[in-house]
């Protein structure tokens, strides 16, 4: 029932997409709406739920801090005036529901509060750090998709029907291995090999363009392995479908058969899964930034957690959460374009 070496989350999505593929079209389209219209409506519900979850969870962060949050922020040797000031600042004297309403109001107006540590607004901090995270995350996602899909397809085609057993085994072992190694270990080893032993790339910082290479590679290796495994498995499934036999019956050239007939069909499950893996890369970026001393949100949030700089923590988690939602939404839109059957029965997470 589970596929080998799949993260449990990926297993969730794979199963969802399988059952939905079987039930595709069974859910009717509401009358008076185009397929895209009802799809958008359904997805909007999911997005609202995800955003609500994000807002609620980040809000409860402060009230849930064990003991008195203000004391925790101020530190052990703070005076009672300092503690009271922080309590005022955090609005902790108000009842919980008023605090929540105020939190909501601030969010709507784009006010994420002030950092305790830097006494600048959280929005400013995010504005200066987000581009760095976006840079490696977007590059990482592109590299991941551009490498994993062709690689997975190539292996899937070459090993179809039990051919080239050695390649199948080798591919499984290689990708399995890199999935088992934590990203920060891969990244550290990249530093040791390329920055220290070979001395060809900078080990840390964001000063030059070449300093992008190691973080992006370190961020992409594990997702490349998990997505290319999925692509390989999906390729094997699609190649056994009737419509591919139809294509072979039409004696289509191999490239046309694989690129035009196989690729769109294996993209459905692949992208559904990839959405999750790619969103996970946002988490990966946090780790990677700490290995390479990359001045992005990930490095910032770790510092903020150590300093108990709660507004900054809330702000960064909100931003990363939003990015994950947008990424999932983007994947769903692409899915709808590639395979219109998806519009019939949407997935409910997001």
């Amino acid at each position, binding site marked *: 029932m589970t596929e080998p070496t799949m993260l449990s989350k990926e297993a969730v999505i794979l199963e969802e997409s399988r059952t939905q593929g079987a039930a595709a079209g069974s859910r009717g389209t509401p009358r008076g709406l185009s397929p895209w219209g009802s799809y958008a409506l359904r997805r909007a519900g999911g997005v609202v739920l995800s955003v609500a979850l994000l807002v609620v969870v980040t809000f409860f962060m402060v009230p849930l801090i064990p003991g008195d949050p203000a004391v925790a922020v101020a530190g052990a040797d703070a005076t009672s005036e300092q503690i009271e000031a922080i309590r005022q600042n955090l609005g902790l004297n108000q009842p919980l529901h008023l605090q929540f309403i105020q939190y909501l109001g601030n969010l709507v107006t784009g006010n994420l509060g002030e950092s305790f540590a830097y006494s600048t607004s959280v929005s400013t901090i995010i504005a200066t750090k987000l581009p760095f995270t976006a840079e490696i995350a977007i590059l990482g996602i592109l590299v991941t998709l551009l490498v994993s899909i062709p690689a997975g397809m190539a292996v899937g085609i070459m090993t179809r029907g039990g051919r080239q057993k050695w390649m199948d085994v080798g591919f499984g072992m290689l990708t399995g291995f890199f999935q*088992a190694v934590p990203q920060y270990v891969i990244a550290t080893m990249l530093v040791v090999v390329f920055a220290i032993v070979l001395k060809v790339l900078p080990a840390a910082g964001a000063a030059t363009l070449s300093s992008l290479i190691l973080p992006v590679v370190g961020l992409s290796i594990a997702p490349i392995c998990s997505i290319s495994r999925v692509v390989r498995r999906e390729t094997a499934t699609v190649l056994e479908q009737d419509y591919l036999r139809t294509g072979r019956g039409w004696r289509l050239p191999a490239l046309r058969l694989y690129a035009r007939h196989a690729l769109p069909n294996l993209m459905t499950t692949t992208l559904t899964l990839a959405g999750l893996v790619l969103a996970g890369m946002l988490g990966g970026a946090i780790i990677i930034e700490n290995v390479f001393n990359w001045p992005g949100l990930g490095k910032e949030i770790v510092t903020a957690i150590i300093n108990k700089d709660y507004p900054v923590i809330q702000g960064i988690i909100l931003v*990363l959460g939003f990015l*994950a939602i947008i990424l999932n939404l983007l994947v769903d839109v692409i899915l709808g374009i590639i395979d219109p059957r998806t519009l019939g029965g949407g997935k409910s997470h997001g």
Partner: protein
Amino acid sequence: MAENHPAKRRFRWTPGLVLGIVLMTAMVLVGLLAPLFLSDAAEKLTANPSQGPGPGHWLGTDDFGRDVLARSLVATRLTLLMTAAATVIAVVGGILIGTFIWLAPPRIRNAVLRVIDAAVAYPSLIFALLIAAILGQGAWSAVLAIAIASIPAFARLTANMAASISQRNYVSTARLLGVPGPRIITRHMLPNMAEPLLVLTATVFATTLIELSSLSFIGLGVQNPEYDFGRLLNESLVNIYSQPLQAVMPSIMITVAGLSAMLIGDGLAAATDPRGGRKFGSVKTASEVPASLRADTQSLVEVNNLTVSTPNGVPLVKGVSLSIHPGEVVGLVGESGSGKSLTAMSIAGLLPEELTVTAHSLRLGELDLRKKNDPRTLATSIGLVYQDPGTSFNPALRIGSQLTEVSRVHLRQSRKAAYGRMVKALADIRITQPETRMGQHPHELSGGMLQRAMIASTLVTDPRLIIADEPTTALDVTVQADVLRQFRTINREMGTAMLFISHDIGVVQALCDKVIVMNGGKILERLTGAQLAAGDVRHPYTKALLAATPSIAERKAELVSVRAEDFTYDEVPDEVPSTAVLSEGKE
């Protein structure tokens, strides 16, 4: 293809599983023993800081003169303990949520499921950071953070499994009998999910290990003076230029630990997967057999002593010979597994490559089908119609672009010309609104319409032979008649030869000039359409087929139950002149 083990669910010890267990056992032993013997070397500050590898310290010492190797080994205990704790919390929490929601009212269940879905979409590390921010830094708050962040995914998978089990009969029966909910879970649900849950637990252990050590690595997990693998690697990063070796040992340890957990997960999945253990043979090319001495020069299709066998040598088609004359419709009848489709697909050259095909001759006109032929010639000479129109079209592409593909690729027609011609062809076979259909996707059309579109697409190349593999089986009875009428019209108006495969002798009788009855990979009887219509059959198997089709065999037939194995496979002596040459294949 699959080798059936008699003991179906026998546990398979794969090398990966054994290796995983051996490595994990070694890790556990290190975790147990290293702190007993190496604590001193690992934790006592000495006067030899930052030394390179040497006899006293194989991997050197850290900033405080502590032995790097010893620290890496001692750290195993804390790492494994934390991972195990987080895994237990995640698994128990996930199972509780995932099973209990099936006892809750549907409204609550759906609400919980939607929230879980929304949570699963976020990277778990982000949740973990949030929880770490609430609880502060430390080993056990990191354990809680990672465990809680892993619960939604585990709960979702458990809920999916519980969903299918909660609908089974024994669960509904237990509910009707008033068995209390928790008892249903422990008695009925959990035992039936045990295997997949075990596999999942191993996978969760592996991911938890990685995530926990990641938290320590970025400084939010284990704090000084305690240390796990992640913490050691974090400390080594400061000195990575002066002492890169300090990073290597913790890296190896964490890799081995993660790998062994993953190998165990993989191995358990493979061991409990009933589909596992498939074996494929090598692909063999058809052996060259001398051409037949007696080629029927008049026939369009000539098949002489065709055999098809699996990679491990099991024969599926055992010496079939047949011929099709220009303009002739030949029916191939038999139950599924009789080899009729394999015979047809051998002619079409579309058999799976792992099957071995041999024949004295296999010919369409002047084309030797045993060789590799020009794709263009094949595509335009043979038109193919398949059994299930619902799966034979590519679901992701529009009908129009699929139907015109052969014209565009092989006849080199422009998109526009091919489109125009196809619209006309669709209109010719009375498909309504052909322009609209061309722009639609397959799932928007009915099966009958798709099948007629497929038939229309074979006609645009003006093929010499149409092979129809059970083209009406997946259709409604009324649609069947319509599709059959299409075939008859095409044959009458264009004179196209056809090989028509069906398990339904009635369908074949209505359409075919010649009928060949197959079973067990051999031909049992050859008949003309007229003979079949008159009920003039000799082989008991054919008689049984006829008897099973009361509308055609208008005689008062008792329902005869026949198994093909009851007969000797000898073919009935042939009385149809045009095929009389072809019965020399014997075994």
